[in-house]
């Protein structure tokens, strides 16, 4: 198992390098001079040149690339062009909020999605199945900012069950939890919609396999078949999808954080975008990619735990 983890770790290095390269290219190759973008059209040539020098834009592109790569690998993401604080500090302050939100959403997604998917599979083409299909499609159709605002209108503005502003008081974890509910549900519902669909189809496939039929013929109780034999095998693709979905979840967390006015990476990136904070943006992208590579890694490893074939 350890060997497997190490192997996967090594295998993710090229991906990470490729991602860093892509990030670098994305920021540079896109037409337009960042200096003009930051200072505006009316900036004098002198101030533009000064800014270019400050950003290192006047140097040979290869040198910029290796500089960026070297610093990124050492964890040095530079200094924000707007706040003049280290990018890493800004991100480190916001990251925990986003991670908590994402984990809560994943938990909600799995807790709703897996049982509902199994239920739908067991009632294939029945009313439950059709209803689940419709609801999951509905869940998939909501852009999170729409579902977030709708939840906000119903539960905060009308029913006054939750606060409108989601900024938790530091140290007060009950308040934090209370304010986490709506954002986490917003994100979790979309996740649940994905999980339902995958669980259903993978469960259907597993239930059709020979060994399940054999177990049934041998008189193993239905409940045992479903939970012990069926679900444990059906979960393998679900894990992959959960892993894949984290990318979407991270993207959607941006919108959720804006709607609920929560601190997190989302607010950081939006302000970096609107203020054209290039170093910040670059840093954010590196962090996002790193998160995704890590999640893929975790997915692969948990895959190894569920699917005995991978370990060997």
């Amino acid at each position, binding site marked *: 198992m350890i060997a497997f983890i190490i192997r996967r770790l090594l295998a993710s290095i*090229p*991906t990470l390098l*490729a*991602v860093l390269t*892509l990030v670098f290219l*994305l*920021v540079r190759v*896109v*037409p*337009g001079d960042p200096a003009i973008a930051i200072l505006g059209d009316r900036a004098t040539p002198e101030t533009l040149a000064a800014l270019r020098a400050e950003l290192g834009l006047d140097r040979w592109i290869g040198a910029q690339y290796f500089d960026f790569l070297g610093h990124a690998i050492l964890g040095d993401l530079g200094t924000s062009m707007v706040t003049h604080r280290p990018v890493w500090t800004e991100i480190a302050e916001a990251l925990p909020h986003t991670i908590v939100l994402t984990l809560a959403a994943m938990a909600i997604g799995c807790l709703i999605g897996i049982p509902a998917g199994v239920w739908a599979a067991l009632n294939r083409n029945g009313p439950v199945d*059709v209803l689940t*299909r*419709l609801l999951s*499609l*509905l869940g*998939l*159709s*909501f*852009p*999170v*900012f*729409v579902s977030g*605002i*709708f939840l*906000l*209108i119903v539960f905060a*503005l009308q029913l006054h069950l939750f606060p*409108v502003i989601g900024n938790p008081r530091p140290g007060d974890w009950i308040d934090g939890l209370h304010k986490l509910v709506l954002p986490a549900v917003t994100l979790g519902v979309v996740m649940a919609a994905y999980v339902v669909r995958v669980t259903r189809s993978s469960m*259907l496939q597993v239930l059709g396999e020979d060994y399940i039929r054999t177990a049934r013929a041998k008189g193993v109780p239905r409940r045992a078949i479903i939970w012990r034999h069926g679900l444990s095998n059906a979960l393998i693709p679900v894990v992959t999808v959960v892993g894949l979905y984290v*990318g*979407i979840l*991270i*993207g*959607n967390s*941006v*919108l959720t954080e*804006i*709607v609920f006015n929560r601190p997190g990476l989302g607010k950081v*990136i*939006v302000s970096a*975008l*609107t203020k*054209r904070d290039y170093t910040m*943006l670059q840093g954010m*992208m590196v962090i*996002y*990619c790193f998160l*995704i*590579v890590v999640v*893929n890694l975790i997915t692969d490893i948990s895959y190894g735990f569920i699917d005995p074939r991978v370990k060997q």
Partner: protein
Amino acid sequence: MTDVALSEPRSSWRVMAGRLLSDPVTLAGVILCAIVLAGALLAPWLAPRDPLEQNIIDRLAGPGSEYLLGTDQFGRDVLSRLLWGARISLLVSFLSIASAVVVGGAIGMVSGYIGGRFDLVTMQVMDVLLSFPSLILGMIMVALLGSSVTNLIIAISLTAIAPFARIARAPVLVIKERAFIEAGRALGFSHLRILLVHVLPNIVTDLLVMGTLWMATAVRTEASLSFIGLGVKPPTPTWGGMMRDGFENILDSAWLCIWPGLAILVLVLGLNLVGDGLCDVTDPKANAQ
């Protein structure tokens, strides 16, 4: 995949369309899409007012007989803005996915056909693109390119190229092993001819089905970008932009968020229902079940 890719020709479009519309859920999707499409096409005639016309006296008026769905903070008619906004949603999502289908499909098809190391590297690049959260990629692209309709289309299509490359490539790997491809080469057909005449028709269905589903995603992405303030510039009406304006007045005028939210939902849900139905109809495995 093999069977999908090489299903017998024209499983008769008419039969397929019939089966598609006989499913009430899919039919509902078709109707939802048709409503939005009609609204967009007929906006100049259906819209009661000019979507840009400001009536400061009537600002934030509630839904009523004067303004069917109310007015926004500048006193602009919400219904008219919704109808005109449908145009942006449809235009941006359709064109961005159409270009993603063409570019991504071409990349995947050529990559799978050539195979070997080239394929390996191309797909590695696609995987990197795929692993990047598409909304964030879209946000960054728009921020860097500047927000215009064209740039929005470029940014959104970029986020969808990788999935289409993957979708196009998988069946090509199967098809290119079939003897009729080799027969074509033996007959002196160019690679371009083999790709366009013999490979492409076999993957077109897959691409169209996924295109429908991805158009739903593109509608969401466009709305999300506009909501963040990275979409088509105001005062052009967009659904996401209307939500953004409404959100600022959410404490007293919640309907400003509800109407555009429902509009987005109707279009995305419609596209998802149609795409889901198409998936079922074109996938022989699902049919067998």
